[in-house]
């Protein structure tokens, strides 16, 4: 395999098993070491430095196996079959020092630095490989094998201590070895360690090592400045050793081989490695399968690994166990991905804003397939990255694109853009007090260990601490909001996506709550929630009248099941992968979508609910059956598109107050709680009538109707129907059924609100579909309009009970409509 074809590689090892079944102090089982490791390793994935191989993925497999996928390039120093010149040795030293400087700055200690994890390529570029072992294993405490090769360990490390400066010692030994040739070749680890410890007696460790190896002359031939550096690295006292920064400075004074600057790579090689890895996986790349082919993972029959004895504390004795740590590295080839993208012209790797966009063939396929299509994701990711680079100037474009779909790989950044996160979020987050104890802490502490714990990313100690900080930070910055159970679930998706960027998670949460859950977390949120649930009930009646009528009949009110839906925007109800689908639509679709989504979920359960009594219904919601989430989201978007805006008006929404009487639909909360159908504003009715998307149901007497009415409206006098019945009878019933079948909104309108409900029509409805009396109107809105609100409200309730869909009440009645839009009315008959 040529170097060009292998840009990443994997290593594997086993995490330590907790012996037996032991519980933590909270009575919950101990977190498996592998999960702790994975949690820590997330931070490694964010490292980006030219002298460090980028970590791409950390995977947890069966039996506590960990697989680490990382960039690779060049050859390990160990495998070089030629001797490096002193200039090139200094070059290696300089670049390794620079890498160590960066690592130490980020609070990582390497500890396992050795010639097999220093890679040198043909351009003389040095990259450290697998430098995160010590960090991700908690200083080795989560694995049961020793870390590092004995001969590169510093004396203090051997004595069970040592900090970052032991990396400098290791570098010193490696440089010395490059100058003198391999050291301590024939010794076993024990004697090697003893030799290192005896160096304590010497003032000049490298010189003594050289003498031990009979190559003092060779040692003295090393250019003086390089020899001085090696001596500074191999000082016995850690505090006397040079720091990596000092070494970088020292090496700048030494003649070094220059790194050859290659022209910036084009095509796949020029793409971000994380993208390439993602596409490689989509194109069928399988990390584990490759490890098996290359022999790093071996399956053996279970009988061979059965222990000989199991002690009472759960410890096992005997039995063949596979090696806990494998030094080998499996390389992956990109051939398959290259073949998959072979036909993509080079220019497409660098999409430009003004050019027509390419999407591949999958664009018309369902979203779930698009998310797994290599080519589609290739175009999508490159394009979104382009837009994200231009954020905030591209905010509108991002919103537009996100309405189609969001590439899962970039979800965190896209959400942040959609939520309008900008500015120095890191600084803002750092200023927040996340530590001071508050009375809420106990509640937070008992909730976190049971919040989305099936996700390994959220299950480790690091995740728990991060979630706690986020919750405390949000509460501290948003008085008078208080902690309501459910806030933890709401925060979890943001933490999951921004695991190594708490500040962005915090900024997203802080932007999400005011947009979707304004005032929900007030100490007294009863008004807000009652209004929300009432609007939800009305939304359900608007789209699913038969179901809404049934639920109302059996007393199955939203208060009994829908509080966790909306208080947590479904994050307490569904697992993370479903929440992502829902929130993708939410962040792109706006604050009106959740109500529609609630109605869409009811629609999915319609068959079950219609045949069920109260107990069966509530049981169904206590243990929600499998619901088609992508389908529900589609339904919700469709409903939301077809719903006139004023219908989902909420007083407590985070919007400027409505002042124009044309837009007014607000009624007192007590009245709202009693009304079956939502109200529609005059402005919406005017628009809908003009576009022929609604039918006004005029419930005044036919005398008044004939005098003057809205053009195209249906007369169905209030006095002519029997409100108690559930059949569409009486004058106008047939016309209404036809209007309903057209799928328009039905606006019931009386003289004033009391008498008006409106039914509106939407041309996209099923033209030959069921009548309004059956499953109801399919697309249009029915506006019930009358003289007075009260009658219209009752009339709308009657229509809903008859199963008529898309019924709403004209706010203010026909009188108000006439005042503001006399043009809609027929001329008065002389």
């Amino acid at each position, binding site marked *: 395999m040529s170097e060009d074809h292998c840009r990443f590689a994997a290593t594997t090892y086993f995490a330590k098993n907790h012996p037996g079944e032991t*519980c933590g*102090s909270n*009575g*919950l*089982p101990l977190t498996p070491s592998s999960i702790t490791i994975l949690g820590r390793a997330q931070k490694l994935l964010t490292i980006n430095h030219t002298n460090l191989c980028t970590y791409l993925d950390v995977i947890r497999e069966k039996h506590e196996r960990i697989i680490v996928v990382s960039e690779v390039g060049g050859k390990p120093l160990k495998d070089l079959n030629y001797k490096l010149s002193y200039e090139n040795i200094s070059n290696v030293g300089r670049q390794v020092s620079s890498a160590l400087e960066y690592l130490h700055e980020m609070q990582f200690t390497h500890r396992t630095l050795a010639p097999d994890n220093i890679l040198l390529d043909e351009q003389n570029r040095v990259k450290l490989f697998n430098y995160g072992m010590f960090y991700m294993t908690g200083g080795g405490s989560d694995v049961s094998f020793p870390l590092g090769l004995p001969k590169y360990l510093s004396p203090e490390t051997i004595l069970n201590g040592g900090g970052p400066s032991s990396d400098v010692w290791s570098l010193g030994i490696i440089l010395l070895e490059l100058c003198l040739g391999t050291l301590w070749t024939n010794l076993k680890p024990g004697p090697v360690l003893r030799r290192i410890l005896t160096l304590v007696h010497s003032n000049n460790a490298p010189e003594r090592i050289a003498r031990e190896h009979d190559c003092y002359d060779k040692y003295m031939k090393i250019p003086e400045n390089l020899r001085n550096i090696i001596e500074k690295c191999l000082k016995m006292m850690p505090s006397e050793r040079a720091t990596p920064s000092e070494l970088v400075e020292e090496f700048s004074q030494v003649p070094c081989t220059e790194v050859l600057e290659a022209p910036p790579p084009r095509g796949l090689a020029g793409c971000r490695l994380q993208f390439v890895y993602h596409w490689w996986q989509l194109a069928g790349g399988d990390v584990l399968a490759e490890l098996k082919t290359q022999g790093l993972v071996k399956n053996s029959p279970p009988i061979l690994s059965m222990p000989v004895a199991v002690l009472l504390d759960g410890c096992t004795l005997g039995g063949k166990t596979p090696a806990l740590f494998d030094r080998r590295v499996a390389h992956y080839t990109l051939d398959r991905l290259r073949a998959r993208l072979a036909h993509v012209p080079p220019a497409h790797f660098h999409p430009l804003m003004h050019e027509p966009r390419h999407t591949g063939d999958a664009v018309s396929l369902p979203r779930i397939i698009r998310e797994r299509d290599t080519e589609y994701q290739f175009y999508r990711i490159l394009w979104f990255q382009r837009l994200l680079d231009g954020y905030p100037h591209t905010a509108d474009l991002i919103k537009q694109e996100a309405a189609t779909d969001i590439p899962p790989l970039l979800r965190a950044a896209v959400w942040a853009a959609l939520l309008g996160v900008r500015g120095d979020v890191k600084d803002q987050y750092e200023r927040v007090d996340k530590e001071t104890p508050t009375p809420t802490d*106990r*509640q937070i502490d*008992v*909730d976190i*260990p*049971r*919040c989305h*714990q*099936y996700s390994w990313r959220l299950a480790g100690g690091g995740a728990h601490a991060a979630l706690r900080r986020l919750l405390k930070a949000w509460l501290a910055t948003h008085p008078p909001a*208080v*902690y*309501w*159970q*459910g806030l*933890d*679930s709401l925060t979890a998706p943001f933490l999951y996506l921004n695991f190594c960027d708490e500040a962005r998670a915090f900024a997203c949460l802080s932007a999400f709550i005011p947009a979707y859950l304004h005032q929900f977390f007030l*100490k*007294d*949120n*009863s*008004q*807000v*929630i*009652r209004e929300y*649930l009432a609007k939800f009930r009305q939304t359900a009646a608007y789209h699913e009248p038969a179901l809404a009528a049934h639920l109302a009949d*059996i*007393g*199955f*009110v939203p*208060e*009994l*099941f829908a*509080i*966790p839906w909306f*208080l*947590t925007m479904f994050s*307490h109800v569904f697992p993370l992968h479903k929440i992502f689908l829902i929130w993708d639509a939410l962040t792109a679709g706006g604050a009106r979508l959740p109500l529609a989504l609630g109605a869409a979920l009811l629609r999915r359960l319609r068959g079950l609910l219609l045949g069920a*009594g*109260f*107990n*069966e219904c*509530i*049981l169904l*919601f*206590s*243990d929600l059956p499998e619901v088609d989430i992508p389908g529900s989201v589609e339904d919700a978007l469709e409903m939301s598109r077809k719903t006139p805006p004023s219908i989902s008006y909420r007083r407590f929404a985070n919007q400027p107050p409505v002042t124009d009487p044309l837009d007014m639909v607000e009624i007192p909360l007590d009245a709202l*709680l009693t009304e079956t159908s939502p109200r529609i504003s005059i402005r919406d009715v005017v628009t809908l009538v003009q576009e022929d998307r609604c039918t006004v149901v005029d419930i005044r007497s036919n005398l008044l109707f004939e005098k003057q009415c809205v053009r195209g409206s249906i007369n169905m006098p209030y006095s002519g129907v029997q409100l108690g019945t559930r059949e569409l009878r009486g004058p106008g019933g047939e016309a209404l059924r036809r209007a309903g079948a057209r799928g328009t909104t039905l606006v019931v309108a009386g003289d004033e609100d009391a008498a008006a409900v409106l039914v509106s029509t939407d041309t996209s409805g099923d033209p030959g579909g069921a009548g309004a009396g059956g499953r109801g109107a399919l697309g249009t809105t029915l506006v019930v309009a009358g003289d007075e609100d009260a009658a219209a409200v009752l009339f709308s309730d009657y229509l809903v009970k008859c199963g008529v869909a898309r019924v709403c009440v004209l706010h203010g009645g026909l009188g108000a409509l006439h005042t503001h839009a006399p043009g809609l009315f027929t001329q008065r008959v002389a």
Partner: protein
Amino acid sequence: MSVSSSRGAAARPNGAPQTKVCQFKLVLLGESAVGKSSLVLRFVKGQFHEYQESTIGAAFLTQTVCLDDTTVKFEIWDTAGQERYHSLAPMYYRGAQAAIVVYDITNQDTFGRAKNWVKELQRQASPSIVIALAGNKSDLAAKRMVETEEAQAYADENHLLFMETSAKTAVNVNDIFLAIANKLPKSESVGGGAAGGGRRLADGEPPRAGGCCK
């Protein structure tokens, strides 16, 4: 588990003719994370989840138990433990014939909170309500902070049923529900229990408490 939707003795298949079927509304109350949902899950489905998610609002489950001559169907309301959701509680204990007040034996504060719930029930709930006190997490006896004697004395004083339970190991879980079933007056609610009131939520008195707050 068998969830019988029949409400009368006549509809019960294979039942001896004299078998009575009674429905009772039971509510679980107590501080959060003491194991209310876990107790219900163990009783109804025989399962236990280490990481049982917190309950928001309330959850509802049913389970039927058979006594000598009676079939008792529990309609169980499992409530949210957080103090803030307190205002929703009356909606659930109103009309309940039985309540299990749960505390965590490893946490003294939860026992104090349990006492408050008992007081509230004695004051506000139906006077004939059967109250049981459950000291949950008895498998964690090594970390015990509430002594059995202390809880027993409190229960005796207030005429409560009392057991230490463990949803994890299933100790005393069925027993506490059976003890409640035994103590409930069965005569009045024969064949659907018109006097029981256990279906008040369903029967034309939808809760109007609404919202999460006072």
